[in-house]
């Protein structure tokens, strides 16, 4: 226990003491996101992530949003376990045909009003996989998309500005 406390104390608060050049940008983004969320979503935005066929690269970067450097929850953004709790679906991958119905059902299960963000080149335009016997291609081919975040995969900062883009849009 002592070791844990010591490590915790010596590591300190990462989320407030940024040492990287881009962190001013991150803070600024965060503040803007928070303002928009406060205004439009009463302070909390629930996101349900759906992998509709990705290579899992995009998931790694979405995961990173929860690490102590980005800690996206402090801006009021929370990843939820059910589409029924979600305001936003964050969809990755080209939509594989085997996931098409699952994605449609997840979309239907999300209460209105709802928004869809297509994350990563695959979700935005089909990416490296495109359309085929096995892939429906971009997410917009299956469900309506409000905002796209290109990149292969988009970095956590790009993801954050994309989410902000939706709220400003």
């Amino acid at each position, binding site marked *: 226990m002592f*070791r*844990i406390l*010591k*490590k*915790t104390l*010596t*590591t300190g608060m*990462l989320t407030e003491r940024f040492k*990287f050049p881009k962190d001013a940008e991150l803070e600024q983004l965060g503040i803007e996101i928070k303002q928009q969320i406060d205004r439009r979503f009463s302070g909390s935005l629930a996101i349900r*992530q*759906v*992998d*509709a*066929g*990705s*290579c*899992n*690269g*995009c*998931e*790694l*970067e*979405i*995961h*990173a949003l*929860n*690490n*102590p*450097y980005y800690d996206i929850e402090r801006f009021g953004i929370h*990843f939820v*376990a*059910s*589409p029924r709790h979600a305001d936003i679906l964050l969809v990755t*991958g*080209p939509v*594989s*045909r*085997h*996931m*098409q*119905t*699952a994605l*449609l059902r*997840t979309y239907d299960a999300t209460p209105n009003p709802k928004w869809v963000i297509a994350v990563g080149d695959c979700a935005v335009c089909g*990416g*490296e*996989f*495109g*359309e*085929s*016997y*096995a*892939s*429906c291609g971009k997410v917009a081919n299956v469900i309506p998309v409000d905002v796209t975040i290109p990149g*292969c*995969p988009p*970095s956590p900062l790009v993801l954050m500005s994309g989410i902000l883009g939706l709220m400003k849009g």
Partner: protein
Amino acid sequence: MSTQHNDWCSEFLTRVIAAGIPVTHIEKSTFDIWQINAYDWQQFAEFAHHEGLRWSAGWAEQRDAQYLVNACFEKQGSYIVLRATLDEAAAELPSQATVYPAANRSERHTHDLFGVKFTDHPDPRRWVRHQAWPEHSYPLRKDFPAAGYPEAVTPPDMNYPFIKADGAGVYEIPVGPVHAGIIEPGHFRFQAVGELILNLEERLGYVHKGIEKIAEGRTPESLARLAGRVSGDTTVGHAWAACQAMEQAAEISIPPRAALLRGILAERERIANHLGDMGAICNDVAFIFAQVHFTRLRELWLRSNAKIFKSRLLMDCIIPGGVSCDILEADCIVVREDIKRLRKELDQLIPALDLNTTLEDRLYTAGFLSEPIAAAFGALGYVGRASGQTFDIRRDAPYSPYDKVAFKVAAENQGDIASRFWVRYKEIIAAMKLLEQFMQQLEPGELTTPWQIPTAGAEGLGIIEGWRGEIISFVRFDSGNTIARFYPRDPSIINWPALEKLVLNNIVPDFPVCNKSLNGSYSGNDL
């Protein structure tokens, strides 16, 4: 080829032939092809099993009106590719899955995509096919267009014949394909009594993207990009394996500096993934302290990747003939400092974890995979190494740059989640030492070897130790520098079935941590 190879190989070959199985032997620089008759397919497997060969990969390809069916075996670091040629009209051969459980899903995959029938298969249900194409239609046949004949909405796979269990108090829990976290889709079907798992059946194939089909006709550069997206967390491993196969076919070898850079990229990928997994395992038993620190260390590691290689996940750094990135003297200093810091941090963190009763309580004895089962399935990477299977290509069949470094394979033998956790830790330590050795050996030099157009029909087999374990990548060229066939065998394809075994007699709430301790790639499995 090592003399050791020739020893067991030629003796074995003599015995196989003496037993009445005719073999045509084609020697290649890095692997041998043994051509046999289709009807001997299963009997050969029995011999191979008796001889202690490990079944490693299986794939097929169509050439004109014939199918070539392949199975790759390994022993003591030497590989042979067994091959049978089938006429279109009689596309069947006896299954090897009766001898090697590892061949089970692979043969079903080949059947669903080629229509090659494996007779006496212990489980002839469909595998990768859900409802995106009809039963008697086979996407990897040449007459099947890449665009296929899709319906506007592909229906869900409702009637898959899952295994049933009944009895007093037995109930079923279906989970997925959409899971409750930020993870890939797949379906798990549990039969449980109370909290105890009696049986687990995995149903994968949800992220099948037709990778093998859309690889056809690509240029080498384009195939490297696609290979780097077979499983995003293994972009370096798969791109390397595919490039190694293509380079073999083109008969070129990469410059020493490029080989060292590939080694640096691969070890950086290994460390990043292990850090992420160690955090996630702790998170699944609600030990958030460790998760916070491991995700922090992973983030720092990825930022250095971005700084040096312009890509956090190291996408597209490996290209046919070499690498697309370089490492400057200043970058080497960054890497050395990273290593120093990571060592120091782990020295602080690891004792705190080692002495923690929560972790001890949840990780020890849970998710037990016995040595015999791990061996039977040919479990790879950290899953195998936690259950006494110490095979590591970097040591046992070293390719450049691993042939010039000292290296110790991490191993544990308790077979539980804790073992898989500690193997990852030891692999991080070993990977840091490898990074240091690679950087020390760096000399100024070329980053790529000029490409040579391979002859039509040239083939290559890439064999790389990815962070999850052995990756096998088969490539054949058509004329005009285009790809005729690409088959990447991710280690997940081999390891997934082990999860069905290691969860038995665990409680349902421990499934997430059992799953994370194995961490199979869905995308790498479904292709």
